[in-house]
């Protein structure tokens, strides 16, 4: 029988806890762990079925045009061009804000709202590491929409050809553009999404703010570009997606027919500058917000 605990003397019983004394993963381990869990959050993995609807729905819709294009190519040959590498992201443009608005808040809002940041920062990872890991994870997740479908289209075009090696030779030149554009869209959009989300108190408000930015920017841009003149010149700069499209055209060429970039007379390098500016501004917001946060 164990003696009853008594007031006169204190005892600490050995109930067999083992302390871990082996090597620890350190900063790198912490960062990969955050990236891993954020990636899972971005796709609703390990969460309820309802939270998978939007991310996976967006991914499926984003891939769909590539499948259709490949199917058309297989059935009808090269007569019909459904979509091209250059216009692909512009065509699925409305899916990007939806994915971003739904998933960016998942990664950052609740950590702030429920005051769990000190738990992260008491590990061997700095505040900057945390922000960087979240940004990396969301960028990787965005690639599922900005890169994967276009790569699929690429693979389909090559494999559907009679002469696979020859087709590969024809298409391989597009590959740097595909990858470069996909990565650029992913990183810039992820930064914007996180920057807005980290300022919001609730996930729903963050989602509303992200959507508002793209909806309003898109509507204003569409109206202004129809007005013509100077207003059509500035129209692309109301919407991050049009700015990215302009930067893509500057870097890799090829224009999307419905994009306001086409009717604007602004020199293309300006779009590159504006893209860098968006990235810098978003990073600055993230940096300042997480440096000042007292948890």
């Amino acid at each position, binding site marked *: 029988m164990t*003696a009853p605990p*008594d007031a*006169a003397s204190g005892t600490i019983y050995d109930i067999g806890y083992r302390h871990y004394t082996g090597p620890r993963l350190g900063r790198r381990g912490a960062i990969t762990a955050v990236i891993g869990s954020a990636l899972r959050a971005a796709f609703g993995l390990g969460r309820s079925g309802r939270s998978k609807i939007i991310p996976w729905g967006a991914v499926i819709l984003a891939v769909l045009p590539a499948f259709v294009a490949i199917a058309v190519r297989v059935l009808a040959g090269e007569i019909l061009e459904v979509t091209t590498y250059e216009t692909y992201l512009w065509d699925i443009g409305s899916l990007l804000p939806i994915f971003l608005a739904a998933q960016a808040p998942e990664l950052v809002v609740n950590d702030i709202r429920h005051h769990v940041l000190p738990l992260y920062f008491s590990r061997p990872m700095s505040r900057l590491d945390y922000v960087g890991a979240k940004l990396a994870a969301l960028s990787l997740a965005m690639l599922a929409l900005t890169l994967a479908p276009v790569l699929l289209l690429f693979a389909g075009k090559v494999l559907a050809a009679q002469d696979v090696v020859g087709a590969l030779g024809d298409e391989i030149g597009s590959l740097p553009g595909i990858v470069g554009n996909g990565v650029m869209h992913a990183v810039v959009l992820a930064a914007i999404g996180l920057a807005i989300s980290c300022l919001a108190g609730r996930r729903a408000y963050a989602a509303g703010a992200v959507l508002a930015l793209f909806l309003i920017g898109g509507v204003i841009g569409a109206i202004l570009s129809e007005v013509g003149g100077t207003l059509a010149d500035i129209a692309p700069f109301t919407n991050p997606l049009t700015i990215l499209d302009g930067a893509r055209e500057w870097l890799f060429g090829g224009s999307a027919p419905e994009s306001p970039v086409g009717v604007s007379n602004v020199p293309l390098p300006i779009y590159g500058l504006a893209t860098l500016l968006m990235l810098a501004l978003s990073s600055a917001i993230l940096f300042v917000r997480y440096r000042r946060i007292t948890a």
Partner: protein
Amino acid sequence: MSTLRLEAVSRWYGNVVAVNDVTFDVGPGITGLLGPNGAGKTTLLHMMAGFLAPNAGTVRLDETPTWRHPDLYRSIGFVPEREAVYGFLTCRQFVHATARLHDVADPAAAASRAIAMVDLADAADRAIGGYSKGMRQRAKVAAALVHDPTVLILDEPFNGMDPRQRLHMMDLLRRMAAEGRTILFSSHILEEVERLSDRVLVVVAGRLAAAGDFRRIRRLMTDRPHSFTIRSTDDRALARELLVTPEIEAVELHDGVLTVRTGDYGALTRAVAPAAQRARASLLELRPTDESLESVFSYLVRR
């Protein structure tokens, strides 16, 4: 004079049973509702305050069911556990608006009275958002008192209060009980309940484990021996003498502390003094180790 009456009340959430076939009355005076976290205290209180429908059984205030009868709030004051308040209002605005929602005849005077009762007059014109936990708690109580209810239901009212505020609030509740109001409060801090209430209801895992005066409850628990610690000038000699007393079941001298256990509460109290005399020891202290509500409670929880 109002009585809250629960008859065979059950409430479940999905397949989790929160309250299981509970029957009791709460009449005038202070009653403490005691139970570990997750025992169903808040569910019970919310059913009594008309915010949850019982899945089975009835919850009535006198003769009226509390569910879907907002008129009853004329005689009920409710202090929720959640800390959320209208942070953008001052305490006076909050209590005053509450008085107006109750159609109190002179809302301004009623608000001032209620604020004075919780001792918050000095801070009444500051926004509640800037209040400390204890002050918020008192603002909530003031709002619950403003219409002079005959029934007061408080969910964890002492959370976040410092000892002085706690004493003040206990005083207030005692005064109100003395005026014939029905007061029910929940707590998991035994010391509070012990000091305040005439009557306790103990809920464990959704079931009513005990009801009544807790000392009497303790005495009813005959299958568990009472235990006492004794300090005297000669513990060892006293232990020897006590051991010959037939009603005493065990005597233990461990690390200089003498503990005795008995099934008969009265027999021990009668036996100690003669035993000390025989052992030529002076009694310094005789203390029931488990007469506190804590031990009653842990007994009921474990059973």
